[in-house]
């Protein structure tokens, strides 16, 4: 095998436009991390390691033929459920929530696994019953979604629960859940809200109100929101320049390498930079939609659509939260925030997208 053949073999199952978008976003991540970490090298270097691991996993998944991918649905989902139940029974409590499972060597957060596991399971289920879908099938699929979500809500991790619900809902939507049923669901949700509200404790209500009015909690999360808005707003059209963000470098901005990294970027690169960033995200999302549209089977269409839409939702929720139009929930900016776990989960998703794109010819013939 010549060197050229080897190279072709390596990239055979990679989707180059998608990889280009991802690569550019990762480059942005390293640049901004260097600035956010006050020109320290430890986080950018660690992030490089995260990226290397995540890319390797993506490559492995991308090379996995689709029928193997489908076969993982039930085991992954079952494992996720078992781990979630374990967390509920003997998980570690940290910051008032029970989210982590201590395995002795390392702690894991099973809800992260379910970000992939749930859409995978639901898409698999719809594929199995594709021949004659009835309302009952949608109901069962919704149940597959709600069981783990209920466990995650109980941890409590409202932010993750809502985002996972969204990814599951996208599968239901793409699988053709009728508009009428969605309308009924919306109305009954609105109608039950006052009942749920009356069932909450005073402190829980207070917390929810605080989410929507950050000034109520100016010492806690509200402080983050206020400082984030100052950083973005003061960036202006062109930004203050790389490494020159005063909010960032004078320690005003909290969590600036993780959830609030968008504020750092915005302060230093301004509105123009934001346009470029949105452009990069649209490149990845757009490519995801094209892969979705061309996908050859029911399962892959649902999976690809859900992965793409979920990615878009994460980006929107994080940027919306940092710029003060959404409540502050702990959601990282996809592919840019510091952290290995979310990077890995995202890249597993992109690996699936690439597998869907590059294996479809084989399915057709």
């Amino acid at each position, binding site marked *: 095998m010549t060197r050229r053949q080897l190279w072709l073999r390596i990239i055979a199952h990679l989707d180059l436009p998608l990889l280009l978008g991802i690569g550019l976003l990762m480059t942005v991540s390293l640049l901004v991390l260097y600035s956010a970490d006050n020109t320290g090298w430890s986080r950018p270097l660690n992030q490089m390691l995260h990226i290397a691991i995540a890319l390797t996993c993506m490559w492995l998944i991308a090379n996995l033929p689709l029928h193997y991918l489908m076969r993982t649905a039930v085991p992954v989902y079952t494992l996720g459920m078992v781990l979630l139940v374990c967390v509920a029974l003997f998980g570690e409590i940290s910051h008032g929530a029970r989210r982590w499972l201590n395995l002795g060597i390392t702690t894991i957060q099973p809800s992260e696994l379910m970000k992939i596991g749930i859409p995978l399971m639901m898409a698999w289920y719809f594929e199995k019953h594709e021949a004659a879908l009835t309302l009952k099938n949608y109901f069962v699929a919704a149940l597959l979604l709600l069981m783990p979500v209920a466990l995650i809500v109980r941890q409590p991790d409202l932010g993750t629960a809502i985002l996972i619900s969204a990814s599951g809902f996208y599968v239901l939507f793409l699988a053709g859940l009728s508009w009428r049923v969605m309308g009924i669901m919306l109305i009954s949700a609105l109608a039950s809200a006052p009942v749920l509200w009356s069932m909450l404790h005073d402190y829980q209500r207070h917390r929810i109100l605080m989410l929507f009015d950050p000034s109520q909690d100016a010492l806690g999360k509200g402080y983050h929101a206020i400082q984030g808005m100052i950083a973005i707003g003061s960036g202006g059209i062109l930004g203050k320049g790389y490494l020159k963000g005063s909010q960032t470098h004078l320690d005003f901005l909290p969590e600036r390498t993780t959830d609030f990294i968008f504020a750092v970027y915005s302060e230093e690169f301004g509105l123009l930079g934001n346009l470029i960033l949105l452009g990069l995200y649209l490149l990845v999302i757009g490519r995801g939609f094209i892969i979705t549209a061309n996908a050859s089977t029911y399962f892959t269409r649902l999976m690809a*659509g859900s992965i793409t839409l979920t990615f878009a939702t994460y980006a929107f929720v994080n940027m919306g939260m940092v710029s003060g139009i959404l409540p502050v929930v702990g959601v990282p900016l996809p592919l840019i925030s510091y952290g290995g776990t979310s990077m890995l989960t995202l890249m597993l998703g992109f690996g699936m997208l690439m597998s869907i794109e590059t294996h479809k010819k084989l399915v057709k013939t």
Partner: protein
Amino acid sequence: MSKHVELRNHQREIFYFRLRLAVSISFVLVLVGILLARMVYLQAVRHDYYQTLSESNRISIVPIVPNRGLILDRNGVVLAHNYSGYTLEINSEKAANMEATINELSTLINITPKDRKRFRKLLTERRNSETLMIRNRLTDEEVGLFAAQQYRFPGVEIKARLFRDYPYGEKTAHLIGYIGRINQTDVDQLEENDLAANYRGSDYIGKTGLEQSYENELHGITGVEQVEVDSGGRAVRMLSRTPPASGNTLVLSIDAKLQEIAERSFGNYRGALVAIDPNNGEVLAFVSKPGYDPGLFIDGIDAQSWDELNNSPDTPLNNRALRGQYPPGSTIKPFMAMAGLHYNTRSPGHAISDPGHFNLPGSSHQYRDWKKGGHGSVDMFKAIAVSCDTYFYGLATELGIDNMFNFLSRFGFGKKTGLDLEGETSGLLPSTEWKMKRHKDKWYAGDTVSAGIGQGYNLVTPMQLAYATAVLSNNGVGYKPHLLREVRSSRSNENRLAKIGKEFDLKFDPAHLDLVKRAMVAVTQPGGTAVQAFAGATYQIAGKTGTSQVIAMKQDEKYDAGKVDERLRDHAWFIAFAPAGQPGIALAVLVENGGHGSSTAAPIARKVMDYFLLGKIPQPLPDVAIHEGEEHD
């Protein structure tokens, strides 16, 4: 034909899916539109506003620490409060050369080596870029002196702060506890409970005693000030303010005067006293002697004072009332008598002949009575009044240890009473099961004999014994003991009363109660073991003396020739309630190495009851007559 339909269906399906996909794409575009609009708004429309905030002036969010709640006794006497004072503080990031600055300062204001040590400790423990205290409690003169020279000391400033003060000092140290600087453990704990935001700006947190157990009530809600600060970090203008809400005031069931009298009645003895209102479980006095100065701990105790407290043979840091575990000795006898009557082991009239010792059947080992030659013919009434050991050796043997365990645990022995203070110990009420688990050994008949007079494995805390006495005095109706009577809210006029629930009713036979209580009254009357202490009392007292043996020195204690004798003497107990017919107070007194209950513990109980029931203040206060007459158990 059928193939055609299938194909069309497939195409239709694809068509519908792509329709959904189109909706999804529009959805994403709408989201992008929203974000774009928001960014244009923040970065173009409102840019100048945020630019101002960020560059020339900055918004600083300043927490306003709430005033800590007061602690009052049942009559409104202040037990913990705050006073304002001036401190000299250094901003470690702005002062150029710390050592030089401090040396320079000390030419102006007296700074002791202790102050320097504490400052260095604060410097290593600091949590954020706050100013650190170098001197507290500045006099007005010192404030004036520094103010005139302040230009010489950049980064040094005078601050007005609130200090915590405990007017009763060591008399209430084990009760009120103290606050101290928030350390890393506290921070972790606060973060765990999601309270960290409310503690921004707070330096202190309750560390022990009521200051700890009611931290949530006392701390209050931190306020917020949004201020514009200039580039030097000084506040220029206030933008908005949410005022803090002070902590709530705790009103205790403690009677400060009673507490003081009880504490002083101990004289130089070590020990503990707990007095309870049996009608509702309110704790009236809670003394552990010796105490310590709680003020030492607030800003971090210096090493020398700490060593003194920690290494003192008197163990002043040990909360004896709550955590001290001692054999109950003969104070267990009234409860044993109740058990004997309950299980029908002994009828009230049944009398034994006491030769001065007890033998287990088939054994020659003698269990001796405290009185050589014995008490003659002894029935249950007399057995309590004269504290006859022989009678109770026999009763215990007939009851058996497991009946004893079941019955005595109903009085709360061997369990925490649930008092609202942290760190209570549960004593020890032995059983066959316990011994097998703990010592991997079976229970011997001899173990039961000594358990019958409250020796052997039995251990109680003064708190437990006071509680059991209260339950007995109130005819078996028990209330959970508590120190908090009422919480006065700082935000509204609403006062929350501490919940007084009837915890349980042991449903004793009134005839049994009557016999045991009458016998306990006889203890304080001619012929009884505590007659001297209660001579001339105008009310009826029911009581019981007790002695617990100090068998051996603790291993970690140093040999001290002058003190060995004294520290090997027995501990003295006295439990009592009065007036006997309608009890308003029940108490337990422990005097360490006090010898016999009648000579040291009972006189303390007398003074406390005289004040509580008659309002009589003992004169002279600090002295305790140490009676060395006939020795009783």
